């Protein structure tokens, strides 16, 4: 099972390596990891996507909490949430394929952010599955380069409050 953790950390040197060291040292895997400052510059927010059975996910949660610099761990998947990832894709765009590339960009509400004689660079955001769909469609046309940010996530507001 894929799981997304949102982790609030003290924004101090070395904190990120405590988190990554925990994953590597205990054999947990990291599918993606994003980290940046929050509104409070003393605190950063890290989103990490991992995979494992229930017991492993429970251990990851507890082990993260055990780190002295970790303020809060939320397991996003247990709630209603939104997740987004951004991707930059450089795709072959020659006379015969340009129109099709543009159509795909349009359908998926992406943007062309760089143009050359033979390629377009496309910017796209969406859920993991949307990004995967775009990649699958563009692959036959010819993807030359791809850079993904990894997932960031946020729980939805509680509607009753």
């Amino acid at each position, binding site marked *: 099972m894929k799981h997304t953790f949102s982790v609030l950390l003290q924004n101090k*040197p*070395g904190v990120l390596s405590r988190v990554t060291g925990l994953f590597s040292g205990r054999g947990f895997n990291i599918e993606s990891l994003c980290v940046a400052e929050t509104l409070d510059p003393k605190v950063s927010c890290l989103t990490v996507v991992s995979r494992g059975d229930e*017991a492993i996910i429970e*251990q990851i949660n507890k082990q993260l909490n*055990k780190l002295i610099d970790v303020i809060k761990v939320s397991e996003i998947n247990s709630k209603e949430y939104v997740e987004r990832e951004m991707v930059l894709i450089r795709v072959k765009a020659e006379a015969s394929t340009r129109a099709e590339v543009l159509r795909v960009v349009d359908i998926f509400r992406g943007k062309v952010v760089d143009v050359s004689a033979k390629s377009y660079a496309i910017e796209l955001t969406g859920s993991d599955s949307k990004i995967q769909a775009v990649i699958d469609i563009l692959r036959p046309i010819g993807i030359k380069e791809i850079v993904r940010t990894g997932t960031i996530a946020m729980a939805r507001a509680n509607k009753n409050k």
Partner: protein
Amino acid sequence: MGKISGSQAIVKCLQEEGVKTIFGYPGGAVLDLFDALMDSEITNVLVRHEQGAVHAADGFARVSGEVGVALLTSGPGATNGVTGIATAYMDSIPLVILTGQVPRALIGNDAFQEVDIVGITRPCTKHNYLVNNVDDLVPTLREAFHIARTGRPGPVLVDLPKDLVATKLLYPEKTPIHISSYQPNFNPHPVQVEKACHRILQAKRPVLYVGGGVISANASEELTTLAERLSIPVTMTLMGLGSYPGSHRLSMGMLGMHGTYTANMAVAECDLLIAVGARFDDRVTGKLSDFATKADIIHIDIDPTSISKNVKVDIPIVADCRNALTALNQWFVKEKSFNPTEQAEKLAPWFAVIAGWTAKHPLGYRDDNQVIKPQYVIETLHRLTEGKAIITTEVGQNQMWAAQFHKFDYPRHFVTSGGLGTMGFGLPAAIGAQMAFPERTVIDIAGDGSIQMNIQELATARQFKCPVKIAILNNGYLGMVRQWQELFYNKRYASTVMNVVPDFVELAKAYGAVGLRATTRAEVEPVIREALDTANVVIMDFRIEQEEGVYPMVPAGKATTEMLLV
């Protein structure tokens, strides 16, 4: 008050924390600190190797319950300490390790004796710091002590750049420590306590399985009260020995790989396993899928990560062991339907089964009237010290025989490297223990291999008047490894024969200590008596049966009921 130097501030802070003894080794990066220490009441025990410093601080902490402090220089000084830090980390021992670091301007430049010790020790410390700002110096040290001693204890390292320690600062007032991201849960949840107690009342075949957490929480009394009021048999892990009196009728001894037949059978057959301050280590559980399969499990531990890590727990109680046990005890006092005598009667059939196991396969060995059996040495030590000595051990067969044949009746009397199994631990740990309790008898039960790993600390023991007694169970082998080779590698003794070993009696003399030797059973008792009567450091060289094995033994990966017996 005016400004003082960083090093003076560190010394002041150590004193504020109640530190009187530290264990250290000097070098360029910590010159200032050692200089400032000279003007204080704090004794630095000058070890002969930094691994020894950390083990000694560790031994000090284990017997006293206080935070042990080690002070090491940068680079090789710090890396030499790493084995000691990892040892303390695995056994949850509160230490503060201060390391010198190159001046801030040089950090990252591969400067002379620079090493990223914070990076190196990240996975084997509870927490660590590189102090970057002089105003953070004292608060960081205070935090380090706080983190080391609270929650699940552990080593905390503070790396101190040389220039920072030389900087002047205003010593900050002591304020309560609050770390928002570090809030261990000390008090048990009443609902969980209630659930646990009801489950305990239903149990027909309960077992208490207790570990080092009971000792670090100083919860022996509460444990003993619970076990005795409820007539629950107790088995201890290696780290838990002494948390419940080993010679008491409810004690089944140690469980696990070299545990007693009774303890392992009882765990296999129990209908309720109450784990307290223990962590279901593989040396305890053997093959996981066969461990305590008939039991519901209650697990009390301060560290949530220990719960359901290896074995699924039915009733977790995250709390300080002492608070949790107190809560259970109070519950049974209040519970009208509970009566200790009826409870004992109810569990009588279970005790009959347990007694049957003990009668069938008691812990034992084949004694000999000529050749020295190591178990006999341990029993004699136990008898002649009335079980009151502090026993440290090295690692291997010596350690297991000590665990099996010395009945520990008091907590903080058995000092052994459990989690990491560090050879060379026993002698420096004994020195640390002796520094904490100068009046007590401290004995390192050693192997001929292990003792050579930190033998240089004999000089430390001599210099600081620590009259530790070292009992070498000299079998001429790296015996525990040899035993595995005997059993599982067709007796191919690859690199376990030690042909060249120093003459330990002469070696003792070379250090100004006393060396004694016993080669026959009859010589054992006189040698021990003489050692105990000697005010100096003593090495006892017991030439034991060379191929004696440690039994029972559960082969690695097997169920704990599949014991090889004597």
